[in-house]
């Protein structure tokens, strides 16, 4: 297998000369990341040596994405493609096949201890691993390794950038823990319209309750709404949160019924557009954590 692909490479190398020269003139490694948060992490590790194309942009939903021909073109022209894995990008395999891309597909979530989440009675893998900052460091290591494999000359640069960024993530992890330290254990409950915070909750000791399942497509039942309202009332939950892409009306209804207030916007699956309150992986935590803290303290 190894020999064959080597031979294959030698044989087709001359044919590839033109595109390789083009990419060399540009000087950058072309990488594609499946969604905005992953794109930001890849950019931080790759720095100037890479040009990142993100398929599902800011405020987009990676669960139900419809690729366009431009996306297929970007994938076909890429040197490395990064995905989250853990079942997030169901559409990715089809896109890679149809685009004719044959390069490496790096799974950033490799090696993460995955959680299962309850969806309609059956356990499925929860893909939102990046919400635990310790997993973010695993992502960084995976990304650095994949970039070094694709661009051996830059291996040193990637390693340096990765360790610096990893230290930043570790510092953010410490900060989150320090911020949430004062919240009494009886008040560590949050209601949000989308249960993308399973890893966050497990890592930082908060229980997240949601009216809808893992996918934003699920339509709620009256029984589910009633259960949640009873729970909010009995546990004294005071604030509920919009997630940046699910139906705000549903959350507003829940809030008014249970006598709670509607909190600000939490970012979980997608970043905000540049200049917004959560335009990078780390700024997403800067946006979310103080709001969650205020909500739990009943402020």
């Amino acid at each position, binding site marked *: 297998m190894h020999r064959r692909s080597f031979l294959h490479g030698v044989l087709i190398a001359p044919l590839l000369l033109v595109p390789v020269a083009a990419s060399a003139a540009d000087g950058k490694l072309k990488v594609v990341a499946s969604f905005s948060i992953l794109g930001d992490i890849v950019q931080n590790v790759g720095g100037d040596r890479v040009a990142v194309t993100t398929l599902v*942009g800011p405020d987009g939903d990676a669960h139900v*994405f419809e690729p366009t021909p431009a996306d297929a073109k970007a994938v076909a022209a890429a040197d490395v493609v990064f995905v989250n894995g853990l079942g997030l990008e169901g559409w990715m395999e089809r896109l890679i096949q149809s685009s004719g891309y044959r390069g490496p597909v790096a799974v950033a979530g490799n090696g993460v201890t995955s959680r299962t989440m309850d969806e309609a009675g059956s356990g499925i893998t929860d893909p939102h691993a990046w919400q635990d900052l310790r997993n973010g460091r695993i992502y960084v290591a995976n990304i650095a390794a994949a970039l070094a494999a694709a661009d051996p000359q830059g291996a040193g640069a990637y390693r340096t950038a990765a360790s610096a960024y990893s230290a930043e993530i570790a510092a953010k992890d410490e900060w989150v823990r320090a911020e949430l330290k004062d919240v009494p254990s009886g008040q560590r409950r949050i209601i949000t319209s989308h249960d993308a915070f399973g890893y966050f909750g497990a890592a930082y000791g908060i229980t997240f309750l949601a009216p809808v399942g893992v996918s934003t*497509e699920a*339509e709620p039942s009256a029984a589910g709404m009633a259960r949640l309202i009873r729970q909010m009332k009995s546990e004294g939950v005071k604030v509920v949160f919009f997630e940046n892409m699910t139906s705000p009306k*549903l959350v507003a209804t829940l809030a*008014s019924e249970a006598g709670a207030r509607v909190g600000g916007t939490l970012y979980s699956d997608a970043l905000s557009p540049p200049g917004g309150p959560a335009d990078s992986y780390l700024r997403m935590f800067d946006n979310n954590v103080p709001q969650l803290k205020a909500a739990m303290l009943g402020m």
Partner: protein
Amino acid sequence: MSLLYDLLAAPFVDFAFMRRALVACAALAVGCGPVGVLLLLRRMSLVGDSMSHAVLPGAAIGFVISGLSLVSMSIGGFVAGLLVALASGVVTRVTQLREDASFAAFYLISIALGVLIVSTRGSNVDLMHVLFGTILAVDNHSLLLVSAIATISIAVLAVIYRPLIVECFDPAFLRSVGGHGASYHILFLVLVVLNLVAGFQALGTLMAVGLMMLPAAAARFWSAEVWALAAVSAAIALVSGYVGLLVSFHFDLPSGPAIVLTAGVIYLVSLAVGRKGSLRQNLIARPHYES
């Protein structure tokens, strides 16, 4: 007794969202019942379905212009639906194309345009989910809108009732006595679009048509008078809403489909045992008449 209370009343007593949903269903029933019956009598049963898709581009444009605003999305949906209805009506009257064909053509154009507008907005916000709310999340504005539309529908229908019925059964007669059949027809189409806009606020496009046509079709097996058809149809729609919400509450099922499926069950039962031309009468009663 308390079991019955828990089963039938407690969900509505305990939860405001259930009461709102029920009120929304009642308003929809009052508006959609008669409109559905008239669609049925005018052999336009499938027009409701195509119209419900025709409102999409308008609602999408409303969303693109001013975000998640009930008013702009409703106005957009109304204008788009109306344009399709009028264009189809004009084409039907001035060319050789039949009404069903021109409706199909315009609604297909309309829905493609809607999907195009939604996807070129760049962000992949799940617009269908945002646009087509669930009946469990009906807020005050939606409730007002739905009730206002029901009121307008009933008032307008009361005024145009006679000429509209005459045009249903004998358009030539209406013309001979100097009635303006076409203008009544257009006014009626406006009502159809209005009721669909009301329906998609509460139920989503597919489900809105369900609450319009299924009760009307079921009513056909119980009554022959047009006014009675309308009343029975509205009653069936209301019962479907009530029972569907209870089913959704007690069996943990999504409410929109639960409501429409309840209407579907009522239709099937009516089909089997109704008093006017049901299966029971056609299959069992006939030998009795022949003897």
